[in-house]
């Protein structure tokens, strides 16, 4: 029974044998269904209070290309996972793309980002190479971390991507530390950290909110609120109905936005970054979004009805972007052209990854300690 013989059963492999209840209960009566805790509304129903300037069409096109790249890479990864080429917990960001892209383009080279296990979109938005990304997720030697970190640990220091994390909310103080470094060194770098709605109730969030606000750190807290914490809808465990209002208790600027619209995200993050760079402290952004795929590869999604997914599908980031582009006079063939180009790029990336050799077993023992020959590297 050596590990190579084990095709990993998905977490809920035996699910099929016992159907879970098909329709989740409604939010208990009396709740007023704010965007934070219900999936009855779309991201566009969020409480945006921002002025959202139009972005140049060229930039929108670039963003669109990025969004499609992310989407197709995620789909390729899901297929590879289904074939057993990828083990463990692989979380895709299908439906979340705009949050990462809008933010990445609003920030500068030199700024920092940390994110969660659901971090493929941040990695690509920040400029990571899809080939090395897929190779990493597959555990190949050409992965950005030589196959050691995998899907949950996207990282690329030269791009300011300082790490994703498998522990819910753990990456949040890391970003505060990066913002602290910027502050202590008198730099104007900003740090942004992404986390989910479920992460809000990890104690370390509270600790970091307080310290970041007290020290006026150049930090942006970005909550990708998809209204689910794994298989549990957020309303079931949250005492808070309007998530974006909560961090105001720390004296922090906060805003709830449409996280599926790159222009809205770009505007909100730009404003937050300006606030951070002028020493006015952190901002909390709640981006309302929706996870179109399962929580992770293999999720059979028994906890939400298909109609809910379909309703949200109507307002997913690629659709929103395509609509915008068409409104700017970009024709369907131009869009199809991009789609095809990206398709090719992602195919090549996948091929690169699949042809990448397995790491040498001696690699197992390296990278525990830095800079000391006696410790293996």
């Amino acid at each position, binding site marked *: 029974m050596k590990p190579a013989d084990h095709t990993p059963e998905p977490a809920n492999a035996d699910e099929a044998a016992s159907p879970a209840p098909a329709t989740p209960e409604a939010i208990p009566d009396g709740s007023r269904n704010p965007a934070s805790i219900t999936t009855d509304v779309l991201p566009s129903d969020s409480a945006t209070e921002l002025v959202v300037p139009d972005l140049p069409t060229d930039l929108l096109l670039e963003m669109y290309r990025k969004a499609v790249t992310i989407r197709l890479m995620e789909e390729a990864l899901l297929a590879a996972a289904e074939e057993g080429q990828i083990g463990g917990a692989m979380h895709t960001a299908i439906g979340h793309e705009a949050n990462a892209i809008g933010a990445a383009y609003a920030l500068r080279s030199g700024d920092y980002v940390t994110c969660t296990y659901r971090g493929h979109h941040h990695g690509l938005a920040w400029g990571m190479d899809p080939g090395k990304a897929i190779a990493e997720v597959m*555990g190949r030697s050409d992965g950005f971390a030589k196959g050691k970190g995998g899907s949950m640990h996207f990282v690329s220091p030269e791009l300011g991507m300082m790490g994703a994390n498998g522990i819910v909310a753990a990456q949040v103080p890391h970003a505060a530390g990066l913002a602290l470094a910027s502050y202590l060194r008198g730099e104007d770098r900003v740090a942004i950290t992404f986390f989910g709605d479920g992460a809000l109730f990890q104690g370390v969030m509270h600790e970091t909110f307080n310290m970041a606000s007290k020290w006026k750190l150049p930090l942006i807290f970005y909550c990708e609120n998809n209204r689910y914490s794994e298989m549990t809808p957020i309303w079931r465990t949250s005492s808070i109905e309007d998530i974006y209002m909560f961090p105001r208790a720390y004296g922090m600027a906060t805003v709830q936005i449409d996280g599926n619209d790159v222009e809205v995200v770009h505007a909100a993050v730009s404003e937050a970054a300006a606030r951070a760079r002028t020493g006015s402290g952190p901002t909390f952004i709640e981006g309302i979004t929706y996870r179109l795929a399962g929580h992770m590869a293999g999720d059979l999604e028994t*906890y939400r009805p298909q109609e809910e997914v379909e309703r949200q599908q109507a307002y997913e980031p690629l659709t929103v972007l395509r609509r915008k582009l068409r409104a700017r006079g970009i024709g369907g063939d131009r869009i199809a052209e991009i789609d095809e180009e990206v398709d090719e790029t992602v195919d090549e990336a996948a091929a690169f990854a699949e042809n990448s050799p*397995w790491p040498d077993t001696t690699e197992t023992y390296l990278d525990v300690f830095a800079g000391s020959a006696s410790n293996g590297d």
Partner: protein
Amino acid sequence: MRRTTYIQAINEALREEMQRDDDVFLIGEDVGHYGGLFRVTRNLLDEFGEKRVLDTPISEQAFMGMALGAATVGMRPIVELMYMDFTLVAADQIFNQIAKYRYMTGGLLKVPLVIRGQQGGGKRYGSQHSQSVDSLYAHFPGIRVVAPATPYDAKGLLKTAIRDDNPVAFLEHKMLYFTRGEAPPPDEEYLIPIGKADVKRVGRDLTIATFSFCLLQALEAAETLKDEHGIDCEIIDLRTVEPLDTETVWESVARTGRLLAVHESYANCGVGAELVARAYEEAPDLLRAPARRLGMAPVSIPVSRVLEEEALPWKEEIIATVLDMVRR
């Protein structure tokens, strides 16, 4: 006897104990409506309702501490940690509070609770979702540590753990979840005592003391060692890591003269080192060759299939170590 899976055995133990004792309740992330990420608690909310199966936010510190509070007045909480790696998120509540509470109060209070969930490698979950925490739990006095390897043992030990008046860490293994084994039907109740090892293979040349998924690896290694090298290993399933049933181990070593301890938590300051140290304290004269131990390589478990396999102290490494010990 019917055959059942490890998951099913645990699910039955939970159900039966919840039926038996109204003070038993489950608490954790996704344990209720969804039935647990690994479906270990499935259908229990339907049967027992929301007051017996509590879905929590991602607040391990708080719900671990709440379990302690409830336990001090006689409730019997069973806390699921979705991955045992999250022990570290709730470490203060587990090791500074739950483990110490009875002692600090001079015995005035009891803390009857179970912390359960799966640990271990083999499925490419990477550094933060694969760590084995048995040695960590065993380091701290005040918590019993149980890590069964078969459906039969899992069911019998979990029922005992739930009835124990002390905190028990019940460590499952993700590689064991879909394994099958014999078990009596649900109506034939049985309990397995905590602290009792079980000889899973009789042999005469060398004693391997192990537990959890490593037991299966050791059993396979033993077949190869027998077939290809004529070496006959006795394999002891410790089942409980705290307290250690050293009596059963020494009894075996008295016959084989050789001891190898194997586990998946880190070798460094691990249960294996502990067993070796105790062997030289309690039974040095039985050993004909130096006692040895195997554990995880000193690296946080990597995702890549080949690297993960290299880091784990599994079949091939067991075989190599046994050969080295016997040929010395």
